[in-house]
């Protein structure tokens, strides 16, 4: 952005230069600047858009940070925005979980556990309440403890089973169930079933007794209190009536203009009424006090009953409390009514007093002026003189003036008095209001408490019922469990017994088998021995037969080999032998099973079989001609084979003289490989009967000499082979014959 601005500034700065300058360089620069200018505007647009987007995103993130609902909306509407938010702000806070129901439970459980805890303090809480048990049977301290705990067990079992505790806090104060595994404390030992049931029944009975006594107590108290309260209320009513009457009469007396004697009777009646009223008020007060005392007593009894904490008594306690409360309310209302009436009466009496005072004053005045005039002055019109009348009138006028003045004064003071009276009244009203409010509050509070107690009672009943069902269920489960356990045990025992039976059976069987096996073995041994001997004898005989057979065969072989040998000797001087085929056939027939002989028989060269072989003598004779020829062509080989060479080689043969026979050395050296030498060695070895060596030596010839000697060599080879095979065969036949003769 800055660069773009700078570029823009530069372009602006240099435009004038560009405009003025003509040379190429600035123009080029201009060109770049103009392009930069256009680029700067594009850059500006790009930068502006980037900024806007960044601002939008940043603003969204900030607002999402502040308002989680907005964040949730954005996350819902825009995909992948939750990841962006997660990166920027961290994970969204989870919505607040409603925890109210969970809070209620712990309270209840805590109350239960408090009950449990209370019961768990065995030493401290000596069960004075249970001391009322009539027949304790001398139970040891754990027993009442256990009864209490037995009660508490009910609650705890519910809790603990609800919490899936393995501990089987399993005491059911129901008569049907057995409580064999009640172990809240390690000190408590397991009691036998009957005792526990008896104890539980006892406990139940004791509870029932207590309950009845308690209820009777309550009823008595209630009754008496009601009576007294009613009395009090009646007294109050009477007082009220009396007050009202008195007030009414007073008012009448004040306002009525009755003749004097009636007035006196009226006044007397009034006095009676007054006395009556005071009396009734006193009576009412006393009755109220008595009623209050009774109510307190009742309250005390109720508290005591509450402390006993018997579940079944609760409803009656609640009812009693309600009654108490209603009585208190009635009493209070009546008392307030009486009080209002009394205040009214006070007003009226004050008024009457005032009136009386005024009248007395007037009478006094009148008497002072006209002392002889009696009270009843209406009948005095004849007796009065003119002066008296004038004075009376003057007095009346004066009185009127005075009264007028007083009236005026009074009017003036009236306002002030009214104000002060109002003030006083306000204060008194406030006080009365406060009192009334407090009493009303008290009543309300009491009402609410009573309602709460009632509700608590209801829920307690419901829970009792539930607990009962659960416990029933638990009892059923217990019986099932016991049944299963018994079944399993039965299975185990049965399998054990079976195992033992099987093992003993197996032992006996193995014993029996072993014995039979031993018998069998010994018998088999004898049999085997006899059989082996028999077999040995048979084999000996067979081997004899075989041996004889072998001997015969060997003999035959030997005969046939001899025949072959003989055929070999039939060679004439220059002719080969007879064909060996017949003899070989004979051999083959005679030793049909003998592989070695067969192999040897087949190893004979086919030409010896078909044509026969030459004897050594003939070969020896032939050798000399071969020798001659070989000498003649000694120089001819692959490279030298022109006629001229032939001529030379003939010349050499004519001119070269070697020994006719020369003993071949043990090892042939290189110079011994000369043709002439080889031929003389071969001749020597032939003369000494070593055809093999002669053949070997002849084999060393090279070139044309070798070629001319090839025939002879082949024949020598054949003869040698045949001789070898025949000698092998005869040796073999001899050996076999020897072998067979040696055998038996």
């Amino acid at each position: 952005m800055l660069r773009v601005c700078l570029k823009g500034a530069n372009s602006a700065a240099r435009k004038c230069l560009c405009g003025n300058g003509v040379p190429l360089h600035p123009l080029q620069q201009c060109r770049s600047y103009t392009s930069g200018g256009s680029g700067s505007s594009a850059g500006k647009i790009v930068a502006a858009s980037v900024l806007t987007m960044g601002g939008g995103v940043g603003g969204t993130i900030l607002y999402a940070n502040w308002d989680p609902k907005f964040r949730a909306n954005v996350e819902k509407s825009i995909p992948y925005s939750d990841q962006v938010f997660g990166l920027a702000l961290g994970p969204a806070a989870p919505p607040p979980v409603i925890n109210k129901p969970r809070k209620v439970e712990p309270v209840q459980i805590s109350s239960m556990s408090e009950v449990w805890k209370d019961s768990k303090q065995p030493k401290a809480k000596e069960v004075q309440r249970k001391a009322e048990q009539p027949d304790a049977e001398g139970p040891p301290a754990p027993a009442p403890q256990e009864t209490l705990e037995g009660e508490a067990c009910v609650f705890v079992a519910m809790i603990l089973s609800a919490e899936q505790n393995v501990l089987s806090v399993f005491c059911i104060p129901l008569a049907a169930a057995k409580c064999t595994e009640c172990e809240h404390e390690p000190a408590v030992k397991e009691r036998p079933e009957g005792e526990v049931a008896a104890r539980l029944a006892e406990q139940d009975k004791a509870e029932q007794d207590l309950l009845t006594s308690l209820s009777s107590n309550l009823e008595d108290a209630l009754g008496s209190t009601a009576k007294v309260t009613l009395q009090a209320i009646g007294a109050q009513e009477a007082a009220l009536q009396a007050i009202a009457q008195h007030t009414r009469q007073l008012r009448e007396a004040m306002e009525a203009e009755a003749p004097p004697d009636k007035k006196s009777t009226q006044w007397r009646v009034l006095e009676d009424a007054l006395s009556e009223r005071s009396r009734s008020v006193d009576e009412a007060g006393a009755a109220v006090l008595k009623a209050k005392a009774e109510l307190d007593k009742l309250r005390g009894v109720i508290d005591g009953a509450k402390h006993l904490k018997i579940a079944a008594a609760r409803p009656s306690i609640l009812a009693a409390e309600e009654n108490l409360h209603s009585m208190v309310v009635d009493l209070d209302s009546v008392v307030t009514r009486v009080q209002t009436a009394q205040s009214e009466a006070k007003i009226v009496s004050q008024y009457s007093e005032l009136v009386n005072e005024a009248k007395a004053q007037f009478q006094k005045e009148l008497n002072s002026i006209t002392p002889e005039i009696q009270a009843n002055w209406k009948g005095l019109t004849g007796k009065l003189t003119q002066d008296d009348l004038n004075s009376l009138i003057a007095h009346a006028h004066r009185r009127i003036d005075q009264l007028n003045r007083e009236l005026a004064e009074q009017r003036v003071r009236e306002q002030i008095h009214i104000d002060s009276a109002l003030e006083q009244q306000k204060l008194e009203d406030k006080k009365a209001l406060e009192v009334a409010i407090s009493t009303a509050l008290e009543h309300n509070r009491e009402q609410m408490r009573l309602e709460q107690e009632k509700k608590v009672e209801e829920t307690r009943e419901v829970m009792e019922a539930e607990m009962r069902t659960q416990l029933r269920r638990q009892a059923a489960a217990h019986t099932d469990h016991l049944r299963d356990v018994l079944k399993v045990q039965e299975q185990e025992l049965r399998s054990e017994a079976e195992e033992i039976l099987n093992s003993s059976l197996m032992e006996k069987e193995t014993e029996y088998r072993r014995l039979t096996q031993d018998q069998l073995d010994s018998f088999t041994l004898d049999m085997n021995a006899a059989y082996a001997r028999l077999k040995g004898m048979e084999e000996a005989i067979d081997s004899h037969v075989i041996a004889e057979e072998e001997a015969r065969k060997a003999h035959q072989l030997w005969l046939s080999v001899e025949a072959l040998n003989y055929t070999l000797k039939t060679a004439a001087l220059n002719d080969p032998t007879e064909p060996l085929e017949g003899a070989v056939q004979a051999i083959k027939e005679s030793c049909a099973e003998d592989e070695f002989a067969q192999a040897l028989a087949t190893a004979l060269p086919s030409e010896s079989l078909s044509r026969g072989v030459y004897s050594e003598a003939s070969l020896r004779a032939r050798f000399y001609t071969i020798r001659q020829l070989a000498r003649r062509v000694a120089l001819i080989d692959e490279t030298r084979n022109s006629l001229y060479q032939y001529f030379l080689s003939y010349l050499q043969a004519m001119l070269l003289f070697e020994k006719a026979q020369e003993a071949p050395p043990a090892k042939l050296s290189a110079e011994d490989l000369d043709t002439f030498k080889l031929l003389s060695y071969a001749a020597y070895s032939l003369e000494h009967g070593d055809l093999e060596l002669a053949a070997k030596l002849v084999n060393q010839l090279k070139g044309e000499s070798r070629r001319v000697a090839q025939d002879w060599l082949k024949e020598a080879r054949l003869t040698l082979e045949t001789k070898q095979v025949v000698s092998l065969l005869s040796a073999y036949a001899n050996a076999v014959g020897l072998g067979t003769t040696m055998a038996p």
Partner: protein
Amino acid sequence: MANEHGQKWDRCLADSAVKIATGLGVGIVFSVLFFKRRTWPVAFGSGVGLGMGYSNCQQDFRSPYQLHGHRVKEQ
């Protein structure tokens, strides 16, 4: 095999003789007919005959050592 040598010589000599004679004869004929009875065709003819016989003889004696090569054409 031993006889082969001898047989070869027999053949060779016979063949040479025939060839020389034939050459001689042809030489004589030519000499008489075409070359006015000069000697050189006779000598020439017999020389040819001899040469031919000699060559044949040599070929015969060489025959075992003759290697016949075959040119294998590249595919």
